[in-house]
């Protein structure tokens, strides 16, 4: 079952290579030529959001972990980067402007490591990885799963946003951190540097997709799908599902954090409004619409949804939100596998009737002793023909 699934979702080597080449050409050559600096900046922002989506695609689509709290890791990466940018703007030994306005005028000790660019880059990855590792291990070894895990992760996002708002003197409160002038020495107001940021974001996203693909086709990827579809069977076979789950949770967290860290210089602000419950769910929308269990579905879905949101809201500033709602309802109702499932359906039809309708054996999969936990996983797989 998993083998067939993997074969379907991880296309052949030539096709994959062609796909990456095409994506690289579009991102590195076509987009910078065709798009105005403003639109290119927007695309850079969408690419950052797509990085979060890659991680969610792994954790939710492959691992069955419905993470409603990726905003926390996105936010950790973003705030670590933003702290560095504020400190760099303030100069050596300087105090960020908002601290002298609203705070005590002293830099708290936990800001100090972010004065170093190297430490910042390391912390962008280490802080979320550590939090996700500890949290994931604690949760998954206690066999918390399904809806319970989803609620827990969402509560974490809510708590994180409230914490940031409450610590106005050191985190900027609801205003967040903003007004950055430079990014590792480059002037952020310069369009050339904005383009550089875009290229960095595009490169990082492509690298992440590669990593995701490697994980998907590896034995770990198969184990992950097995854990998603029948966790207890995996345990009976002698594997510890908590290891696989924690690992994929950490990977998703790091991807979200890197997306957040790049989001900050691209957009120029990070505030609790970007890390709480609503944005955390927003990350899922694109993944769900694109097709969560596929490799490129989450990426393309995230970019397409953000792009549509921007262009529709420009056309219909007062009614755009209905379009978004209708799109989401439409996809959930008629294409529960996301837009990527359209492609799969057509491909199967193209091959003729050789592929039997796979739904029946899967939906009648043997019941798991823990219905709540396996539920998310089974639907994820059942809707994937």
């Amino acid at each position, binding site marked *: 079952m998993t083998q067939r699934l993997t074969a379907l979702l991880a296309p052949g080597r030539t096709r994959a290579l062609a796909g990456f080449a095409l994506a690289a050409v579009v991102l590195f050559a076509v987009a910078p030529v065709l798009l105005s600096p403003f639109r290119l*900046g927007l695309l850079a922002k969408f690419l950052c959001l797509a990085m979060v989506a890659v991680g969610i695609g792994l954790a939710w689509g492959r691992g069955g972990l419905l993470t409603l709290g990726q905003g926390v890791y996105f936010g950790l990466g973003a705030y670590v980067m933003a702290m560095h940018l504020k400190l760099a703007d303030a100069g050596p030994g300087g105090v960020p402007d908002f601290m*002298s306005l609203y705070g005590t005028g002293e830099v708290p000790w936990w800001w100090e490591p972010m004065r170093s660019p190297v430490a910042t880059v390391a912390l962008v990855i280490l802080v979320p990885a550590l939090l996700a590792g500890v949290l994931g291990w604690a949760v998954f070894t206690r066999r918390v799963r399904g809806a319970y895990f989803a609620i827990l992760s969402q509560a974490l996002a809510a708590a994180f946003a409230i914490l940031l708002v409450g610590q106005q003197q050191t985190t900027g409160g609801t205003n967040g951190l903003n007004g950055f002038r430079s990014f590792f020495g480059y002037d952020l107001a310069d369009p050339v540097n904005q383009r550089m940021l875009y290229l960095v974001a595009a490169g990082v996203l492509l690298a992440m997709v590669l990593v995701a693909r490697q994980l998907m086709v*590896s034995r770990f990827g198969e184990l992950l799908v097995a854990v998603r579809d029948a966790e207890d069977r995996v345990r009976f076979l002698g594997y510890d599902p908590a*290891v696989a789950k924690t690992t994929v949770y950490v990977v998703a967290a790091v991807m979200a954090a890197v997306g957040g860290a790049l989001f900050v210089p691209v957009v120029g602000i990070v*505030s609790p409004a*970007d890390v709480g419950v609503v944005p955390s769910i927003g990350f899922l929308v694109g993944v769900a619409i694109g097709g969560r269990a596929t490799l490129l579905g989450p990426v393309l879905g995230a970019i397409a949804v953000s792009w549509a949101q921007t262009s529709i809201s420009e056309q219909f500033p007062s009614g755009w939100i209905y379009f978004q709602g209708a799109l989401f309802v439409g996809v959930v109702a008629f294409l529960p596998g996301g837009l990527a499932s359209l492609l799969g359906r057509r491909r199967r039809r193209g091959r003729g009737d050789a592929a039997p309708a796979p739904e029946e054996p899967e939906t009648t999969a043997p019941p798991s002793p823990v219905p709540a936990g396996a539920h998310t996983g089974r639907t994820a797989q059942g809707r994937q023909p």
Partner: protein
Amino acid sequence: MRRSTPSLLPTRTRGPRLAAAALAALAVVAAGGCGARVDSAGSAGAASSSAENADCVDTSGDTVKIGFLNSLSGTMAISEQTVHDSLQLAAKEINADGGVLGKQLEIVTEDGQSEPTVFAEKATKLITDDCVAAVFGGWTSASRKAMLPVFESQDALLFYPVQYEGLESSPNIFYTGATTNQQIVPALDYLAEQGTTSLFLVGSDYVFPRTANKIINAYARAHGIEIVGEEYAPLGHTDFSTIVNKVKASGADAVFNTLNGDSNVAFFKEYSNAGLGADEMPVLSVSIAEEEVGGIGVQNVEGQLTAWNYYQTVDTPENAAFVEAFQAEYGDDRVTSDPMEAAYVSLHLWQQMVEKADSFAVDDVVAAADGVSYDAPEGTVVVDGDNHHISKTSLVGEIGDDGLIHPVWTSEEPIEPDPYLEGYDWAEDLG
């Protein structure tokens, strides 16, 4: 039986080869892009980029574009829609009157979606794609802080119509709402005049209440007022039993309320339930205007105090005309409030500045701004060319049973804006 950590290494041999090939391809492409960008970044890094968009505003035709950027969706929509309506009215009036420098205003509307990042994005779009001559809008401090770097780096103009926490003055922003010395400080003066000796501070947990309370604490220290309590509730919080109990137990002379939005409904209901009212312990609010009174319920706030610079009941001919025009446009049941009036004024002030400068260019408009005045519904306002705020008369009002707010105290003279409170000795150590 194997019981081991699953290996991360792929078992298929094609895996590593594929990755290597793809990474190599990626590296080649990236290196190509990289070479070009390091060179150009190195040479252009120091150069200013703002000139690029300075002349993008098209004034050759008989129209000129301006941008309205308000949240038409999300949590702030209920407040910002009223400001948007008010801006539309002002634009309609100016167009009917012959436009600005003979050009009709062409409005480009964008939705800020109650998200600071969206405000920054839409502001950039209005400036660089639509080439508007000026942008009007923003409400929350977070949205303004998000837009500020955009307007400064693109050298464009923003008119911000809401009272706020001060401590800011950007060459690219005009602030037509009150700063702290035009709203909070006069409100404290009023309370001190009334013989208040102890205050309880209640606020939402964000930048405006925190900063306001910092100022109130400094004022209180210098004027012998005791702060008997300071409580914050998260934005949107609706359980105020604990806070109201603390307020009641404190026995303060008055409450200074900087709660925002829905929280006021819950707070005042709880306040009435606890047997407190305007007679026992008056509450002075700085975020409740005519729009909000209906939502809270008149019976819950009747007789309570507010501090603003404009009320629908202000008795000037300009206000009578404004209220009449607004209700004719949007319906007799609509009320006018301070931020709406400040937005209405902001468009007229921009018109005056442009006509004084005889130019739509940002630099010319800013150079002409100092001393520009307008007979606003709240009274005559004058632009301060240094800090880009405007002079405003402060009004303390009492909420009446008709749902409107009636002035009970006025500062008599318009108060000059002082966003950093430099003219107040007691505010010296506020930073």
